[in-house]
């Protein structure tokens, strides 16, 4: 049974009790991303304080992986500067490209905290985009929020 490798308890916890869910004010940018192959959607807002991410708020519809991913991302990026948050996103991308190689997950444990639990997803090419959708939305929204400031 490979299922447990993908649906780690941490992932299911985030799915059942998502952190930071709901759309909040204030925000400088809002984006709407969809996964056209399955119809999963996320609407995500970013609120910056200088270049620090003060809040990320979101609403979404999707599978456990996509919903847990946005919740774990919320925990990781609040309080980080935009470049730091995007670097964390790059680490998450590296994890998603690891094809289940445990050594990659081990190396990224400190940077990714709970989100390292998504390592098992990288073995299922069809599900990687579910995990990445929220990070793509964050990248897009924070670029727009920075743009709105300048």
């Amino acid at each position: 049974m490979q299922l447990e490798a993908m649906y780690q308890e941490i992932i299911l916890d985030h799915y059942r009790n998502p952190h930071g869910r709901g759309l909040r004010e204030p925000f400088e940018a809002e984006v709407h991303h969809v996964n056209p192959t399955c119809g999963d959607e996320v609407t995500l807002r970013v609120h910056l304080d200088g270049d620090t991410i003060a809040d990320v708020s979101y609403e979404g519809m999707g599978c456990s992986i996509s919903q847990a991913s946005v919740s774990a991302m919320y925990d990781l990026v609040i309080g980080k500067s935009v470049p730091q948050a995007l670097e964390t996103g790059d680490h998450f991308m590296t994890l998603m490209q690891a094809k289940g190689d445990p050594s990659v997950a081990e190396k990224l444990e400190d940077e990714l905290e709970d989100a390292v639990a998504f390592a098992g997803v990288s073995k299922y090419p069809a599900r990687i985009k579910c995990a990445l959708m929220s990070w793509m939305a964050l990248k897009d929204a924070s670029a727009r929020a920075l743009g709105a400031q300048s």
Partner: protein
Amino acid sequence: MTAVAQVPSGPRPGSGAQQKPLPLDVEAIRADFPILSRTVRDGKRLVYLDSGATSQKPRSVLDAERWFYENVNAAPHRGAHQLAEEATGAYEEARETIARFIGARTDEVVFTRNSTESINLVAYALSNAATAKEPEFRRYAVGQGDEIVVTEMEHHANLVPWQQLCERTGATLRWLGLTDDGRLDLSDLATVVNERTTLVAVTQQSNILGTINPLGEIIARAHEVGALVLVDGAQSVPHQPVDVTELGADFLVFSGHKMLGPTGVGVLWGRYDVLDALPPFLTGGSMIEVVRMEGSTFMPPPQRFEAGVPMTAQVIGLGAAVEYLQRLGMDNVLAHEEALTAYALEKLAEIPGVTVIGPPDTVARGGAISFTVEGIHPHDVGQVLDDQGIAVRVGHHCAWPVVRRYGVPATTRATFYVHTGYDDVDALADGIRKAQQFFGVVPAEEA
């Protein structure tokens, strides 16, 4: 770790689902499909319930393609050498076989890449007609003030090309809606299809709901107002007898890969007089009569619509697929799937929390069964099924307006074919229960 309880296999005690004798010999048929002997996900039997997306291929189809490449390979309709003659003969023989299969004249069968391309061919021919320099090609020109009618049930392949045709020509797109039980709402048929309608495009079997549509009524109304009718047979031609004379439409499209044939070959059938009045879509070699630097003239149908060296081996493979289906008998294929569908609907109804999106019984219904499981996203249902070797489709099934209509984000869909048996349906039902246990949403009375 989430604990996964053991689920007994086979019919559950108390299962009232009826297993009527199946018309097809599933074990014998399975032996014809090499892929069904492989295992997936650590040694599990492959339970392939995704024929609606693409079907598996029997050995005779694979052999036909190999035979062509090993013995005959040449470009048909070009060259005067022996191989070219034989390749042309094999290609045209396959056209005859396929035409007979749908009760059509041979010169009414056009080979395309798939249903999508067949539909685009018609849509582009209709807008090309508006600008054709040849008066005989302008008969079906679509323009401002014209209306194209589709339904809310269409696959994107039978919706987006019509939206695009309307954008190119200024025509208006209209559509027939759906009822709550997954059927076409024909209450406003007489107003939606009216004197301004130039074409009605409608599916014979819904790929997501399984609904078989009452085409007779729609075609009669369309012809009453002088409109053409295109029938999307992508999910009907593989699964039920279809005869174009009985059907009475003007176009029928279907895909080889969904009916045991190879990928890369599809069919556009059109009434000869209609095809003959249409300008080409793709142009180039093989479809011309005379070419001068100043301009060119075109062959009659079907060659007018087959530009370039065709997918010869695939056409021959499709011929073999049709022969395989004819040996089984399309009446038997239909009855086989009907029995499986009845059983599956009963099995699914026994699982609390499972909702079928589409007609709840087998009346005018094919074997595509879409469902949701309360508390579990369809993707996650699909993943748990996949872990048990069960291949289903998840998502919006290229019919996004349908899932939107029924207020669900997506569905999980099982589709059946000639190699499907009751054991596959049992595996599906057990797999759904396993998903409920895995995600901890086992309804109280089951726990």
